[in-house]
């Protein structure tokens, strides 16, 4: 994928010169994982960081399907959820002394469980691609959800399966009781799996899944069975999903039917897409932002899912490359130069954009307050609005309208005389079936 490094006579030995730039992002990533809990050290933030870690791994495994293979799955939580259940039962058994397994290796077990179901369900789903694939994954997801309600022995019914993650004697003082130890367990697994998923993208199969994504028919004429390429990738992706599921289970000490639900699968899809599927690091951004805002916003507003939905739709409409795509686009020299030259317009874009967002949030919150709140007064951003007055809506509507127009004007003026950045969704282009 990367262009060959230019051959320059240089003092640095050639080997080092090729390894350094490749190792640097990994070193930064590792450092970030180590330092994060030291910066955000509160009790709640540790829990959020742990959740972000598992969601990152889920997103990366999901993107093996969507970004790399063009497979849009609506049932990815099936594999992470089942991995979580198996991990939970294993820890319970370990706690009862029936089996002996250290907590730190439970994620492998979860991964194998996820993989097992990947083998089973993947056989049916990967026979198809495109839209049909999407529909079948949804069907499988519903099937497993229905099973979860039917078989309380395994799925624990309404209450789920809960357990105590502290099993056996602590090793070197590590019992995985304290949250910080669980965080580092997640961080280590995340780092290992991220390396593995990245390595996968550099193997023959990893390249062929890209080829199958682009043109499954031609892949057949160079010797590959596209179904088999998809199937194998699906199985590997399920393994990493299972690892993530097990880590999530260890973090929460409970697994319930919600873990395999279609809603959870939808969240994985949403976060990954928002992060961007065309770049390897996209899902990491998506997971971090997704979990952060879910946790944060759900404390402040009942409308957070609406915001998530609107944000997602706006991304599909205007930035199908996701945030990572926008980021890569924004740091292009051409764009940077333009931003510096036309800074007043950039400022105008930012200000009017913020005003639009502010107005929209105000409007949504007013509506929520009116229909769900106990009184008609809304306090937001330090201002107070009477939601029973028609005038309030008119003012807010005008605000959104005017700032929207100014945003559009500034945007057009900013890009005047340039090729607009074209982010493409090619990674998930699904060809129409049968034509």
């Amino acid at each position, binding site marked *: 994928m990367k262009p060959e490094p230019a051959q320059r006579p240089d003092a640095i030995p050639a080997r080092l010169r090729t390894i350094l730039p490749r190792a640097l992002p990994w070193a930064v990533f590792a450092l970030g994982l180590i330092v994060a809990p030291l910066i955000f050290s509160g009790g709640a933030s540790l829990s959020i960081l742990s959740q972000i870690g598992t969601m990152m791994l889920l997103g990366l495994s999901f993107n093996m399907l969507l970004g790399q293979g063009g497979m849009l799955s609506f049932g990815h939580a099936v594999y992470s959820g089942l991995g979580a259940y198996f991990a939970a039962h294993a820890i319970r058994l370990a706690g009862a002394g029936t089996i002996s397994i250290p907590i730190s290796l439970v994620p492998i077990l979860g991964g194998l469980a996820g993989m097992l179901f990947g083998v089973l369900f993947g056989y049916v789903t990967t026979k198809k691609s495109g839209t049909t694939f999407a529909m079948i994954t949804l069907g499988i997801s519903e099937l497993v959800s229905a099973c979860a309600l039917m078989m309380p022995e395994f799925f624990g019914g309404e209450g789920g399966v809960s357990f105590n993650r502290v099993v056996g004697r602590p090793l070197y003082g590590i019992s995985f009781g304290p949250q910080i130890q669980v965080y580092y367990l997640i961080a280590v697994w995340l780092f290992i799996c991220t390396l593995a998923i990245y390595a*996968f993208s550099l193997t023959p199969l990893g*390249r062929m899944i890209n080829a199958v994504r682009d043109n499954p028919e*031609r892949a*057949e004429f*160079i010797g590959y069975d596209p179904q088999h390429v998809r199937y194998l990738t699906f199985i590997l992706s399920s393994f990493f999903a299972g690892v993530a599921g097990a880590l999530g289970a260890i973090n929460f000490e409970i697994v319930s039917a919600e873990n395999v639900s279609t809603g959870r699968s939808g969240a994985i899809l949403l976060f990954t897409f928002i992060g961007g599927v065309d770049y390897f690091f996209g899902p990491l951004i998506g997971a971090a932002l997704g979990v952060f805002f879910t946790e944060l916003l759900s404390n402040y507003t009942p409308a957070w899912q609406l915001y998530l939905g609107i944000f997602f739709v706006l991304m599909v409409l205007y930035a199908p490359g996701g945030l990572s795509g926008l980021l890569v686009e924004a740091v292009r020299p051409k764009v940077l130069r333009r931003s510096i030259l036309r800074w007043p317009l950039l400022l105008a874009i930012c200000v009017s954009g913020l005003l639009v967002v502010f107005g929209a949030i105000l409007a949504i919150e007013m509506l929520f307050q009116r229909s769900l709140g106990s009184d008609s007064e809304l306090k937001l951003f330090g201002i107070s609005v009477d939601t029973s007055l028609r005038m309030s809506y008119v003012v807010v509507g005008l605000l959104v309208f005017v700032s929207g127009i100014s945003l559009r004007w500034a945007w057009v003026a900013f890009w005047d005389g340039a090729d607009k950045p074209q982010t493409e969704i090619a990674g998930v282009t699904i060809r129409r079936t049968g034509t």
Partner: protein
Amino acid sequence: MSECALDLRDVRKRFGSAEIIRGANLQVEKGERCAIIGPNGAGKSTLFNLITGRFPASSGEILLNGSSIMGLKPFEIYRRGLSRGFQITNIFHRLSVYENLRCSVLWSLGYRYSFWQKLSSLPDVKERADEVLDLIGLRDRQNTPAGLLTYAEQRALEIGIAIAGDAAVILLDEPTAGMSRSETDAAIEMIRRITQGKTLLVVEHDMSVVFALAEKIAVLVFGEIIASGSPNDIRNNPRVREAYLGEYSAVDRTE
């Protein structure tokens, strides 16, 4: 009689009630370069699709090196040593030129579905991909996404993908379609070079290409091979003159 590389026996294909291929018979010897010519709609591309397993034939027999390939999937036929190019460019448009070629050599070098080896540290893959890159003359475009190539470059890549796996039998569907005179000449030269010692079956409209390339010509008219033989035989065959060259002689290209 020595074993044919490709042997079609009374191959037929029906779409609904319309019979498109009506009993095609054709033998291509090993190492032979054979061109299929015929007016538009004669079923040349359909015949290719039948041979390569894209569509199943309705009846008849297709033998590759003496064994039947009827009912096999395209990738199974490829693994038996038959590769093809397409008339409408059919490449991996988001992958770079180099990646297109790397993908195309993987199976033939035995890497199959490997996910435990690093692609960039496989010397034979690199060697073969580089070789093909030079053959098709796209060395300086190797990092360009295939979808951004010019039309002629895409045609060259199309042929490159078809030959990269070093298959013994190669089928090319109008490899020079849409090329200019000079591009065509270069393409002929390239095809001649890369199919050295291989069996080639090519569909072509351009008579100059046909006569420059083929040792044998088969004429397909309305789903039937009405004649096959050396270029001279075909020129002098009265049925061919009547059915094909007669109404077609002045121009050597259609479309």
